[in-house]
């Protein structure tokens, strides 16, 4: 019963936000734009192969062209069309952030809920684990894994997941603890309903809503961290069409070809902004106190 209500409330909130909140609309527009690019990227990019890293045969005549009608975002140091590079990057960006958030969410929920449900040593151990990983920002994690596992997609994903899950674990622990202490959960436990059922039906479902809203905002934050890691050369390989990588490549030419870094950075900003706005608008819709009209009345 209560789970149905939660989900309903979330979908209500989405509907309300869609009607009332400009922020939600802007956020939805931005994120669906990026999603669209991710799907259509190869179709709309003028030079898909250059987007994937191929140096054109005419490289010598094309290097370092500033933005023009022919190349709206200019060309890079090897004469590749930056627009194509950026467009092809959308898919990679979305794959990175959704994988990271989904995996972190899964780990975090399990750890948080278990810690909240079982008290004693399990709680202490899981919370301790959470704290340890919380103390390690993704970037140093990436450094260690880069040395241990080498460069590549797996290093990037592992370092991000390892540093993001504790946030969800912490949040779901707090929510789950309050749910666990509610009467109906206590009653269910007393009535001998198996732990598995209580955990899934009552606890997990009830905390899903706020954690999900947080996850939407985090999609943007993860992109910021991922691109910082890629920018520092700790993550993906240098010919991948990743926005952070392209910006890194352009950084070497920042004074002579600033457009190489400018545009991928802009896309990172817009994408992160899109998800952040979506999350914010939803959160505000779900908090009745913040929905009310307000002015400085005294």
């Amino acid at each position: 019963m209560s789970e149905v209500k939660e989900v309903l409330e979330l979908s209500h909130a989405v509907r309300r936000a869609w009607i009332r909140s400009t922020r939600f609309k802007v956020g939805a527009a931005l994120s669906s734009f990026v999603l669209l690019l991710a799907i259509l990227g190869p179709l709309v990019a003028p030079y898909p192969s250059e987007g994937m890293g191929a140096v054109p045969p005419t490289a010598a005549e094309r290097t370092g062209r500033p933005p023009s009608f022919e190349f709206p975002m200019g060309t890079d140091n090897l004469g590749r069309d930056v627009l194509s590079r950026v467009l092809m990057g959308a898919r990679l960006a979305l794959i990175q952030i959704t994988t990271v958030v989904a995996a972190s969410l899964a780990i975090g929920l399990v750890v948080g809920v278990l810690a909240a449900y079982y008290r004693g040593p399990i709680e202490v151990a899981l919370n301790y684990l959470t704290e340890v990983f919380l103390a390690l920002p993704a970037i140093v994690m990436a450094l260690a894994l880069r040395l241990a596992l080498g460069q590549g997609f797996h290093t990037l994903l592992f370092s991000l997941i390892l540093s993001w899950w504790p946030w969800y674990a912490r949040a779901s622990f707090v929510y789950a603890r309050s749910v666990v202490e509610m009467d109906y959960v206590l009653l269910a436990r007393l009535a001998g309903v198996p732990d598995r059922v209580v955990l899934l039906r009552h606890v997990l479902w009830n905390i899903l809503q706020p954690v999900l809203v947080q996850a939407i905002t985090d999609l943007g934050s993860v992109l910021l961290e991922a691109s910082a890691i890629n920018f520092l050369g700790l993550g993906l390989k240098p010919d991948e069409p990743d926005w952070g990588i392209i910006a890194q490549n352009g950084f070497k030419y920042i004074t002579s070809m600033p457009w190489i870094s400018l545009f991928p950075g802009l896309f990172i900003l817009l994408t992160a902004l899109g998800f952040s706005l979506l999350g914010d608008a939803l959160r505000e819709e779900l908090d009745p106190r913040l929905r009310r009209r307000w002015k400085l009345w005294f």
Partner: protein
Amino acid sequence: MPLSLSYLVKRVAWSITVIVGVVVLSYLIIILSPGDPAVKWAGHPRGPGAAKAVEQARKELGLDQPLHTQILNFLRMVFTGDLGLSIAYRQPVYDVLWRNLAATLELLLVAYAIGVPLGSFLGVFAALRRGKRVDGVLQAIGTVFANTPTFWLGLAIFMALLPSGFTAYGRVNVSLALSTGFYTITGLYLLDALLQLNFPVFVDALVRLLPPALAVAAYPVGVCLRIGRTLMADALLEEYVRAAAAWGVKRRTIVWRYAFRAALPGLVQVSGLAFAYSLVDAMVVEYVFGREGLGRLLYDAVSVNDFRLAIGLLVIVAAFYLIVNTLADIAQALIDPRVRL
């Protein structure tokens, strides 16, 4: 108000146990990832001396002993401040780290000295005008600031300064520092220059520090603006704000002495959490602005396969995170009279 010893001890003890966990974790990364741990610890040595270096590393880590002995051994190394010589610089890892931590810290502190008050003030301002156009604009600014890739912002600031002929590169003009007899005491150049009453170096260091600090400050501005607004909006709905208004307390007093005072502990906590995040930002911005600091160490550690330096960084960053958050917690306790110490 005296801070209760037991609270302090408990908080610090917890942080230390977490650090122990971080050290164990980093040891597991060395041990469990593919490849010979001794080779990794020795920094993939090359040349005919390699075998000897690897043997030395094997001895240092005690790889022939059972795992728990190894871990204890490693813990002792970390906590006695002996992580061996850095592969990249052939100097003790901790020496290198301390030298560079100061540079990063200086950048962070200045960024926070700008970012937190500015963000909080704007947050209060937005909360007071909740629902108005100003609020919308400020919230948009906050969201954009909190979501701008810092390296990109650094690049943008950097490029914006280029046409002016002013380049905020490095930490201080070396020629200037030398000719004025500047020397380092704490490693925080601004402080050192002040201590020596060396104003030219102070001005030079400050001017070079401000552009990267602004880039780093964007995130705390954004976060404090958003959080400050929320906390302040909540505080303005409190019963005691209503009561104070009914008793005729002036608006300004209510806003700052009642409502903002209530938002303060939350802001302190969030700033503490954000501080650790900004450490990462600072490392990236340092790289963009060619400053010394942990960011460059990170970069170097990768290019030389310097596992010792990497572990040192891991421990330092985690310790830094925990110290800042412990301090934030203690500060929060100090400024909240309800917390029994």
